[in-house]
C-alpha cells in the first residue's frame, strides 16, 4: 500500500508523513496532493486569527473539545512564525491544547510560516487539503499572531473567526481595512476582564448591521438577493481560560456554515479559494523557473542595473520575464 493510501485508510503515521512531504513541497508531496485531491472538498475549514496573545490557542483548544463533545472528529493546523534570522521556529501551540493530546479523534499539526508573510505558511492550504481528504469533517487553522494585513487565512477558510482581547484600541482601529474585514465571527476573548464590555461595545458601534462580504468579495453577490438574507457578523464574548461562551461560538460557526450552504455563497467562496491557490502555485513555479533559467548571477546583474539607475525595476522585471518565457520554450 502506498503512503497516501495508508493515510487515507486511517494510518496516522502515514498521514503525518504525507503532511511533511506536502509541507516540504517535494515531488512525492506534489504527487500525493494530485492523488488525494479528488477526495477533498468535504471539510468545513475554520480559520482562527487575531493578534499575538489574544488567546487563540487556548480558544482553539476549547473549541476543539466542544466540537468533539458533539461527536465530530477534527484536525487542527497551528501556524507559528519562522525566524527570519535563523530559519528556525518555536512551535508552541500544542502547549495550550493539553487535553486534546491523546484523543484519537483529533489530529494536531504545528507548522512554521517559513517566510510566508500572510499569517499562514504557503503550504497551509495543501496541508488542509490532505486532512480534508483523510476525512476530517472540520479543520481548524490557527494563524500566527496576526496584525492588520495578514489576511491570507481568508483564502483557505470558509469561516473566519477573529479573536480580540480587551483593550485593543478604540473604534477607529476597528474601522481600518484588513483583518477586521475578513471576520465572519468576532470574538472578544478574556471576557472575564473588566475592559471586555468596552471592547464589545466599540465593536458593536462599528459593526452594527455590517455583513461580512469582505472576503466573499465583489462579484460574489448572492444568487437571489431578494430571498436570502446576508450574514450579520456576530460579536461573541468568550473566556477560554474559564471555558465560557464556547458552545455559543461553536453554534455560530455551524450557523455560518449553514448560511454559506443555503445562500449559495459556499460555491462562490470555494471558487475564489481555488483561484488563489492556482495563482500561488503559478508564482511558486515561476520563481523556481526564474531561479533555474536566470539564476543568482542574472538576478544580481539585474539588481546592479537598477542600482546604477540605468534601468527601472519594472523594466528589469519585464526583461527577466521575457528571458524566462523565451528559454522555457522547447
Amino acid at each position: 500500500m502506498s503512503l497516501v493510501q495508508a493515510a487515507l485508510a486511517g494510518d496516522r503515521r502515514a498521514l503525518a508523513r504525507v503532511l511533511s512531504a506536502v509541507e516540504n513541497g517535494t515531488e512525492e508531496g506534489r504527487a500525493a496532493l494530485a492523488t488525494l485531491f479528488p477526495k477533498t472538498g468535504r471539510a468545513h475549514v475554520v480559520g482562527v486569527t487575531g493578534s499575538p496573545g489574544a488567546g487563540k490557542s487556548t480558544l482553539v483548544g476549547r473549541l476543539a473539545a466542544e466540537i468533539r463533545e458533539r461527536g465530530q472528529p477534527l484536525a487542527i493546523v497551528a501556524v507559528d512564525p519562522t525566524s527570519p534570522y535563523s530559519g528556525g521556529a518555536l512551535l508552541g501551540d500544542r502547549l495550550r491544547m493539553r487535553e486534546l493530546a491523546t484523543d484519537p479523534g483529533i489530529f494536531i499539526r504545528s507548522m512554521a510560516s517559513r517566510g510566508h508573510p500572510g499569517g499562514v505558511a504557503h503550504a497551509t492550504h495543501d496541508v488542509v487539503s490532505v486532512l480534508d481528504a483523510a476525512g476530517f469533517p472540520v479543520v481548524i487553522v490557527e494563524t500566527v499572531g496576526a496584525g492588520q494585513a495578514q489576511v491570507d487565512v481568508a483564502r483557505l477558510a470558509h469561516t473566519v473567526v477573529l479573536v480580540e482581547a480587551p483593550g485593543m484600541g478604540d473604534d477607529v482601529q476597528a474601522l481600518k481595512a484588513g483583518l477586521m474585514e475578513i471576520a465572519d465571527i468576532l470574538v472578544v476573548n478574556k471576557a472575564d476582564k473588566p475592559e471586555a464590555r468596552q471592547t464589545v461595545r466599540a465593536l458593536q458601534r462599528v459593526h452594527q448591521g455590517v455583513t461580512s462580504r469582505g472576503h466573499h468579495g465583489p462579484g460574489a453577490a448572492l444568487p437571489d438577493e431578494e430571498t436570502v438574507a446576508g450574514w450579520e457578523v456576530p460579536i461573541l464574548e468568550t473566556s477560554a481560560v474559564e471555558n465560557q461562551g464556547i458552545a455559543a461560538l461553536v453554534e455560530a460557526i455551524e450557523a455560518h456554515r449553514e448560511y454559506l450552504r443555503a445562500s449559495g455563497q459556499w460555491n462562490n467562496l470555494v471558487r475564489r479559494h481555488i483561484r488563489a491557490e492556482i495563482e500561488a502555485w503559478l508564482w511558486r513555479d515561476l520563481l523556481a523557473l526564474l531561479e533555474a533559467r536566470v539564476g543568482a548571477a542574472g538576478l544580481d546583474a539585474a539588481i546592479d542595473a537598477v542600482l546604477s539607475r540605468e534601468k527601472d525595476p519594472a523594466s528589469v522585471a519585464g526583461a527577466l520575464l521575457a528571458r524566462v518565457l523565451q528559454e522555457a520554450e522547447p
Partner: protein
Amino acid sequence: MEKKIRVLVAKPGLDGHDRGAKVVARALRDAGMEVIYTGLRQTPAMIAEAALQEDVDVVGLSILSGAHMALVPRIIEALTERGIEDVPLFVGGIIPPDDVAPLKALGVQEVFGPGTESETVVAFIRRAVGAA
C-alpha cells in the same frame, strides 16, 4: 524547499522546572530547526502522540525529577505502540552517571547533563538525522 529538522522538546513527569527545556528549545530554534514545544507534565502517551502527529525527526526529553528510569521505558513503550520507536531519542537534565549506560541500553541515543553547550546538542541532532 529544503527539509527542516523537526524536533519535539517535551517535559515528562511532575516537576515544574522547564527552564532547561526552554533554553534548549530556543538554542535549536536559533540553529534553524523547527521545535515543537509541548510544555510541562507530559504523559508518555502525550509525548508519543505528539511525536507521531508532528512527524518529528528527533525527540528530546527534559527530566530533572530523578524519575528518568521510570519514565523513559514508558515513553519508549508508547513510541513502540505507535510504531515510531525508530525516532532518535535524547535525554537532558540531571541524570546520575551510573544511569547513562542503562538509559542507552533502553534505546536512548544520548544523555546531556547540566552545563552542556547548546552546540553539542545541535551537533548531536544533525548527526542523528544524518544532516551533518
